[in-house]
């Protein structure tokens, strides 16, 4: 019951952001696919890129740091509830903020394009990969912003995490491409475009994913890192209030 109330509170605080995300992504997909100014794949990848770049930052900065800014985190942590439950409720709604607008955009994309250029399974795969990437990025950003004071500062940190991800991804891609040009005996080609790579659920390891086992291992590593980061964030939320506050 207490957990349900925490989720209710987070829902009431985040529902406008979720709505905002849905409107932005659905409008982009709808207008792009209806006008057909460019090819459908570009619109789909563009919609996903907006989601992946925007939603995790909105979620990470708007949960713990915003609440600390308003002073209500102190009230929550002084209540008879374990700090990890507070963070779990926030994580749930943060995940919803990352996933729901992309899901809505996927529905709009399928409804409008009907697989005319990109098949429906391929469309759903692009959105699925984007949701996974957004969720992973969100957990990274959550962990690195959990101690920060203020939404603006947290957003800056979240952008820093995003830049790190992009640099790591493109850096690895370049390494692989150099290797490919030197020894072209990889069983499977690297992702065909950089945009696809950005949207892959395991950006650090996808470039090395020569087969299914390697990809699964990579994803497991990513999930393990995300789980570790989440517990680190939970510790940060619990510990921050007890440090250096006379």
């Amino acid at each position: 019951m207490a957990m349900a109330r925490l989720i209710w509170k987070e829902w009431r605080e985040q529902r406008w952001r979720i709505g905002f995300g849905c409107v932005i992504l659905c409008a982009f997909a709808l207008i792009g696919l209806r006008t057909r100014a460019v090819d459908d794949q570009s619109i789909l990848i563009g919609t996903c890129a907006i989601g992946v770049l925007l939603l995790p930052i909105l979620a990470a900065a708007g949960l713990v740091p915003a609440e600390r800014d308003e002073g209500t985190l102190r009230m929550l942590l002084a209540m008879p509830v374990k700090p990890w439950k507070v963070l779990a409720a926030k994580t749930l709604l943060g995940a919803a903020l990352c996933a729901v607008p992309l899901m809505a955009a996927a529905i709009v994309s399928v409804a409008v394009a009907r697989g005319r250029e990109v098949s429906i399974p391929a469309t759903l795969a692009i959105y699925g990969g984007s949701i996974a990437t957004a969720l992973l990025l969100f957990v990274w950003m959550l962990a690195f912003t959990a101690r920060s004071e203020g939404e603006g500062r947290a957003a800056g940190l979240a952008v820093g995490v995003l830049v790190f991800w992009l640099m790591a991804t493109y850096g690895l891609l370049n390494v692989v491409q150099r290797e490919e040009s030197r020894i072209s005996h990889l069983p499977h080609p690297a992702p065909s475009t950089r945009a696809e790579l950005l949207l892959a659920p395991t950006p650090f390891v996808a470039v090395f994913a020569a087969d299914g086992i390697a990809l699964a291992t990579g994803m497991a590593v990513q999930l393990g890192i995300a789980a570790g980061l989440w517990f680190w964030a939970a510790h940060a939320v619990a510990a921050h209030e007890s440090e250096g506050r006379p």
Partner: protein
Amino acid sequence: MSDTEQPAIEIRGVNKRFGRKPVLDDLTLTVRPGQTFAFLGRNGAGKTTAIRMLLGLLKPDAGSIHVLGMDPRRESLEVRRRVGYLAEDQAMFGWMRVSELISFMAPFYPTWDAGWAKQLAERFELPARTRVRHLSKGQGVRLGLLLALAHRPKLVILDDPTLGLDPIMRKEFLRDVVTYLQGENVTVFFSSHLLYEIDAVADTVAILDRGRIVRQADTDALRDHVKRIVVPAEAEAKLADLPGLLDLAQAGRQAAAVVEDVDAALPLVAGAGVPYEVVDLNLDEIFEAYVIGRRGKEDNHGHGPAHLERVA
């Protein structure tokens, strides 16, 4: 209190540092059940740190703490379930309506009494449909108090509850709320830096200065023992060595010493053949003597009270 009666709060030898800065230094105090205990100190004295330790929100570096017989380090959730707590300048969810905030809090407390919460809301004249951000400062404090009381705690901890209220509201708060809690036999532990306010309601007072309790006593005993002795200015030297000297000041043709125990100091003044007058002090003046008086002596490194120059 009988010997077997468990203290509502017991703090023994607690130390706490934030980095290199010592905040609490060998803090020791006991609050008996049913008492109204005023925890006095200037801003930054360590009151909030001590209170947050009582709720398990901070951990002491050394020493022991028991609240209702429980160790807040190990049983922080149970302590928070059983204690009513109003934080200093508590921020609440501004977007919630008063009724929503009350409903939000209820499931966290197994002993929450919804009927009692409703009665308190009426008694405190809180508009159920109003958003919390639209409440006045006084209404906000009363709402915080409702949330601290609705689970019928036997111990209520209020951290500077009148902070930010205007003088009339502060008086109302103390008259109505603390008196009411006393009537319900609830133990009240509240911190304040405004002494004149607690004069009428506190049974016991502890004065905290730079992390140390400099005096804990029943309010009446404090008033009976801590007095000001006034002598002619030329006899000021006779006051400088009085036992339990807290403060020494010169004002015009008179010198005044505040002593911890007038019964011990007075025979020495009388024995010196100096004309004197004994003046009763209110809690505000007693607090000032303990806190400002001591600071003067320590800042002067034992070369006599710095506040000698201070004109009372």
